[in-house]
């Protein structure tokens, strides 16, 4: 296996919103040295609560925010290095992003065919050859499980799940190696979430994609990912390389996430003792929860 994406010791800080004094230059450290490796064809989950810096990391990996220090390599090329315009475009096209807020990431005055067509146009420019856009849009729609007749619809004529599928189609239209899913399923209905995750798994097998899946929901990580990084206040606090070893995590923050899972089968309170030992081993957490 060879890594598709390598990030080393990424640090990012922002100027603080409310400074102590006039013209103050206090900075807030958002990422404190994050390193990660994404292997070919795998799905890496990044989990953390809101404000932990996971979306900032996503922006750094997508080439949207140069880090203060640290490096990002995609396919062995430095994302923030000096390249010719063509190489740079190719590099940026090897990673696509799907965002959480599907309504604001699709232009409301574009039809579906133009939303996806934008990606195809970028691809045409890069490869210097024409693409039969109409046919390709129909193909892509079919791949994400939508009828080709949707091509002439506007975003408001689609449901949330359908529009998110269009965003996924747009992301895979440029033939990327890596797709960054930044809370891509979080604002969908629970049942639609599963459908979209199933779709993503199918696409991964078909196109040999690698995913970086950023979320705050641990159940979707276990459903979907091969490895997981627990993220807290700008640091990776725990890494699980084998999902079967998830119960062995030690970091208190990661455990808290594990305990916050609700669902059929995970009974809290009375039936909790029925669960395997890892959850019962921490009487302090149980006391706080009940």
């Amino acid at each position: 296996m060879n890594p598709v994406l390598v990030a080393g010791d990424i640090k990012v800080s922002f100027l603080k919103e409310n400074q102590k004094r006039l013209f103050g230059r206090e900075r807030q450290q958002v990422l404190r040295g994050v390193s990660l490796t994404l292997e070919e064809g795998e799905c890496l989950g990044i989990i953390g609560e809101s404000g932990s810096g996971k979306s900032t990391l996503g922006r750094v990996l997508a080439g949207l925010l140069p880090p203060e220090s640290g490096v990002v390599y995609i396919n062995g090329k430095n994302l923030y290095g000096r390249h010719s315009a063509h190489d740079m475009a190719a590099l940026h096209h090897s990673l696509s992003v799907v965002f959480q807020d599907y309504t604001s990431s699709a232009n409301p005055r574009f039809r579906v065919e133009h939303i996806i067509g934008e990606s195809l146009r970028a691809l045409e420019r890069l490869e210097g050859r024409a693409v039969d856009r109409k046919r390709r849009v129909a193909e892509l729609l079919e791949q994400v499980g939508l009828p080709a007749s949707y091509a002439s619809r506007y975003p408001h004529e689609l449901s949330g799940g359908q529009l998110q599928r269009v965003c996924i189609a747009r992301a895979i239209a440029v033939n990327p190696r890596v797709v960054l899913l930044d809370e891509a399923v979080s604002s969908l209905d629970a049942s639609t979430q599963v459908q979209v995750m199933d779709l993503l798994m199918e696409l991964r097998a078909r196109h040999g994609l690698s995913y970086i899946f950023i979320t705050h929901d641990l159940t979707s990580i276990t459903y979907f990912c091969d490895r997981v990084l627990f993220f807290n206040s700008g640091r990776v606090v725990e890494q699980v390389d084998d999902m079967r070893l998830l119960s062995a995590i030690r970091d208190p923050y990661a455990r808290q996430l594990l305990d916050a899972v609700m669902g059929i089968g995970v009974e809290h309170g009375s039936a909790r003792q029925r669960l395997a030992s890892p959850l019962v081993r921490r009487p302090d957490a149980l006391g706080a929860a009940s």
Partner: protein
Amino acid sequence: MTAVLEVRDLTVRFRNGKRLTSLVERVSFAVRRGGCLGILGESGSGKSMSCKAVLGLLDDNFQVEGSALFEGRQLLGEHPEVLRRLRGGRIGVVLQNPMSCFDPLYRIGEQMAETLAEHTRLSRNGIREKSLELLELMRIRSPEDVLRKYPHQLSGGMLQRVMIGLALSLRPALIIADEPTTAIDSISQYSIMQEFLRIKQAGETALIFISHDLGVLSLIADEVMVMHGGTAVESGPAARIFAEAQDGYTRHLIRQHKAVMSRFLSAIHQRPEVAA
């Protein structure tokens, strides 16, 4: 035990010019004191619409039929002013997006005081003490500071807790929670659910809990009603529905949820569990 809220054959239609579009079709449910009814359904299934109709939050564009008895009193067709006094007083409501429920231009303390002044005869000091007490009840750290803060200075989870505290403040007989944990990260979600569980265990109030997430409902609901396309496709005790749902749509939802959960459980237990 008699029901706190009993809704029968509730039908909501939307007036679209001369045509009537049916949004909710003959839905019946009841919830008793200390009990919790979970309403499950995807977006657009009419679950919020039913509750809004009961609370009298729909305008003249909607036609509401049926009956809704709250403590033996008919709510449908009641004077809006009477309903307004009921809401926030005897009936507490917690809505989905805590950020948009608060006015961004007023401090938390002022907004809490507004509700308390409307429904109680407390003095200014009394209101302040009551607000502090509520924040403490909701386990918010340094409540004095929070009272002086603006909504944007608090996290979604904190705001939602303030909302729940306010909903509880007047000892309502019924709390309607409309997707209170959606759009909040999972740790805050869990702690908010703990607050609701405490309310339920206190046994004073009836809870109606609306959600699209089976995981949340499995934690709190005694009874579940599943809505799909404006009708109640299934209702009954939670345990029975989760184990042996009759309706195809319900079974589909539960199967999906269990598929996700079985992966999670097998991951944390290192052995396969819960047949999907």
